[in-house]
């Protein structure tokens, strides 16, 4: 037995953390010893059931959770999301076929889908030519002929309703460190768009244009330029006032900058090129559909690590909020989606709001988005008060994550790395839920965005996941 560390202690200055009787800390300070008093609370707020679960977990001494989590986080940090191309969903996304519709969030059936998602499905079916009008599309959707599956089950992610159908073009994102890929549609723009449930002819037409013109042109430009290092881009945009979920203006600008020199060299009519550039320029959130698959392929590398309590998926479908944990395989833990607490655009109130929806919370899962709020002071005005609040938000997130990111840094926090590796055990222990900021859709399909704000995920998911984790890895 080595006692070197004890002998080392004899040579150091005592620096004490005191848990319990305050007088012990007071006495130490009187002798010039640095002593920090912990304002201790029983774990899980004294919830004996949870405390018993913790005991069970600890009883398994062969479980090295911290090592498993360390591995998971390292894989996330090593990730190299790279944009390698654009493809058609059916040809590119594993398992995709004509009668399959992918959606955001955990699994949900047609009858349980919220308004905006149903609207988007209808639009998607019409776009695919499987139905000629709304009534037909509805009937088809309800008939059982169409399969509905989460984007996440096919290595994909989708913002808001997140509907992906066979003919849609998708970004192809490759994690060069581990070889896995992720896919996402191209962002249609703002206002009346499919992802908010709009499905008018205007929407269908735009989708058609994207498939016929936008995607092929961008593909050629990308081929000419070569793959784009997204990690590098995201690191830059975090220092330019973006956070990758609700604020993407810098990202969109940088992306245009990357492709412009190649677009200009393409053998296409000027008007078409101009339309493409204008389209991207007018949509501040164009970059979102790139940051999302970047996050997805990065965090996917941490899936399926035995004994790891790192959360690898968070997603909502407008009805349920769901999470998945690395050491618990593909199991979803869901609970009813919550309402967003936010600011509304003129003319709208919280009565108009749809519940929280979309796969975009994959950005928080990897440590940007709401977790990097301190990087985006502009956001703060809309989700609460002062830039100081945004900083406090991010600071709180450090309590439930495992490491600080080594590439994504926040200038306002002295370039501290973003909180990375959300630990479901820490969430239960500290009673701190992940901070998510998001847009708010109108509850009626097709109206569009009505506001934005902060949303607290339902804690039931995390508690259920924790219970399952203890069930699997705990011991009596």
């Amino acid at each position, binding site marked *: 037995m080595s006692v070197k560390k004890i002998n080392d202690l004899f040579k150091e200055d005592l620096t004490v953390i005191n848990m319990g009787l305050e007088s012990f800390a007071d006495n130490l300070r009187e002798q010039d010893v640095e002593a920090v008093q912990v304002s201790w609370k029983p774990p899980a707020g004294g919830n004996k059931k949870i405390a018993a679960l913790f005991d069970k977990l600890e009883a398994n001494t062969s479980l090295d959770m911290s090592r498993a989590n360390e591995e998971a986080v390292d894989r996330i940090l090593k990730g190299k999301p790279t944009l390698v191309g654009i493809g058609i969903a059916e040809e590119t996304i594993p398992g995709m076929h004509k009668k399959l519709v992918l959606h955001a969030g955990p699994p949900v059936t047609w009858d349980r889908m919220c308004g905006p998602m149903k609207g988007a499905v209808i639009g998607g079916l019409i776009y695919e030519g499987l139905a000629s009008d709304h009534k037909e599309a509805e009937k088809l959707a309800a008939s059982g002929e169409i399969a509905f599956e989460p984007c996440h089950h096919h290595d994909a992610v989708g913002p808001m309703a997140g509907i992906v159908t066979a003919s849609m073009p998708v970004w192809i994102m490759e994690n060069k460190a581990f070889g896995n890929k992720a896919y996402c549609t191209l962002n249609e723009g703002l206002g009346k768009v499919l992802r908010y449930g709009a499905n008018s002819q205007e929407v269908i037409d735009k989708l058609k244009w994207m498939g016929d013109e936008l995607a092929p042109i961008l593909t050629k430009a990308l081929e000419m330029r070569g793959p784009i290092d997204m990690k590098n881009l995201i690191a830059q945009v975090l220092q330019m006032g973006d956070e990758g979920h609700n604020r993407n203006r810098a990202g969109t600008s940088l992306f245009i900058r990357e492709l412009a020199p190649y677009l200009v060299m393409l053998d296409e009519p000027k008007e078409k090129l101009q339309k493409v550039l204008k389209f991207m320029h007018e949509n501040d959130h164009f970059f979102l559909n790139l940051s999302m698959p970047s996050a997805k392929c990065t965090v996917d590398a941490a899936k399926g690590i035995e004994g790891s309590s790192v959360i690898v998926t968070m997603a909502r479908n407008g009805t349920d909020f769901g999470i998945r944990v690395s050491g618990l395989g593909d199991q979803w833990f869901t609970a009813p989606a919550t309402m967003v607490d936010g600011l509304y*655009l003129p003319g709208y109130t919280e009565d108009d709001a749809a519940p929280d929806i979309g796969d975009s919370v994959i950005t928080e899962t990897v440590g940007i988005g709401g977790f990097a709020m301190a990087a985006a002071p502009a956001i703060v005005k809309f989700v609460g008060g002062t830039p100081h*609040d945004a900083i406090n938000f991010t600071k709180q997130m450090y309590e439930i994550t495992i490491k600080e990111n080594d590439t994504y840094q926040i200038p306002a926090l002295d370039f501290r790395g973003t909180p990375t590796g959300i630990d479901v055990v820490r969430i239960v222990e500290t009673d701190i839920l992940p901070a998510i900021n998001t847009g708010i859709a109108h509850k009626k399909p097709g109206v569009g965005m009505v*506001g934005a704000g902060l949303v607290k995920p339902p804690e039931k998911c995390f508690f259920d996941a924790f219970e399952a984790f203890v069930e699997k890895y705990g011991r009596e």
Partner: protein
Amino acid sequence: MFGEGSLSFGVVTVSHNTSRPPQLRVVMRGALVPKYFSGEIRSTHRHVINIETAVDDPVPGAVFISLLEREIDMTAYGLLVSTIPGGMKPGMQAVLADGVLALGGEKIAHDHGAGVWDGFLETGSFRAGEERVRAWLENALQRHADSGGFAALAGETDPNPFAARARRVLFRAQAVERGGRQVIAGLHELVGLGIGFTPSGDDFISGVLLGAAASGGRTGTTYPAVEMEPMAGQLQKTSTGGATLLRLCLAGRFPAYQHRLLKSLRTARTEEEVNAAVEDAASHGETSGLDSATGVWWFHSRGKKLIRPSG
């Protein structure tokens, strides 16, 4: 996702408070806490924040709704959270609306999924027999005659002027008929009498009600054993702390520490256990616990006989 045209941000409608969402979760919500209230923080202590607001039922008046972090402090006017937030000061506004409690303009806690704490007691018999427990209680209370509260009533001495007055009031207590039942009248003169932020008299009365409730039925379903009307009329004559306690007990909803007191007395098998229960009560407040225990003792020594002469 917002950002739909930066111009729109200059003219945004605020549909409700835009400060960040609450970080705490209300674990238990007292059944008498109104769905909506607005008030002011009156005091902050290590484990409690007291908010004063007004209620109408059964009579209009001020009441404390307390933010608590220890279950033993819970009442039907309480909100139990895992940690009392720091930085709260008397004078700050307190608002509960749409399931969110805001203090000083900052959203502090939400109550989605909070359990309801009603404060009703299940009653039952005394394991060691009512008379024996009463006698042991008497002995234990006499040892605390010098507490400054009413414990001295269990003996012969009057070590403080408040207990002396209380003795005279209790001597005059009698039974009257109200709504077809016999109830104890005259105790309303004890409201507001004595030391402590919740005066001893109020604690004593709550103990009498506790003792009476223990004698059968689930509390809240039986009419209180003490005459209601004059009591309700006296609420504004005592401190807000006292009034809050009386409102609770008149509704049959007793504070958690009184649940514990009664349970200990009911399950006690030996005098030591009764002594321990009294010591435990003595550690609550300064004399509150002892004064309520004294009320329990008084009910079983005299009060009961007033309203059930044969019992």
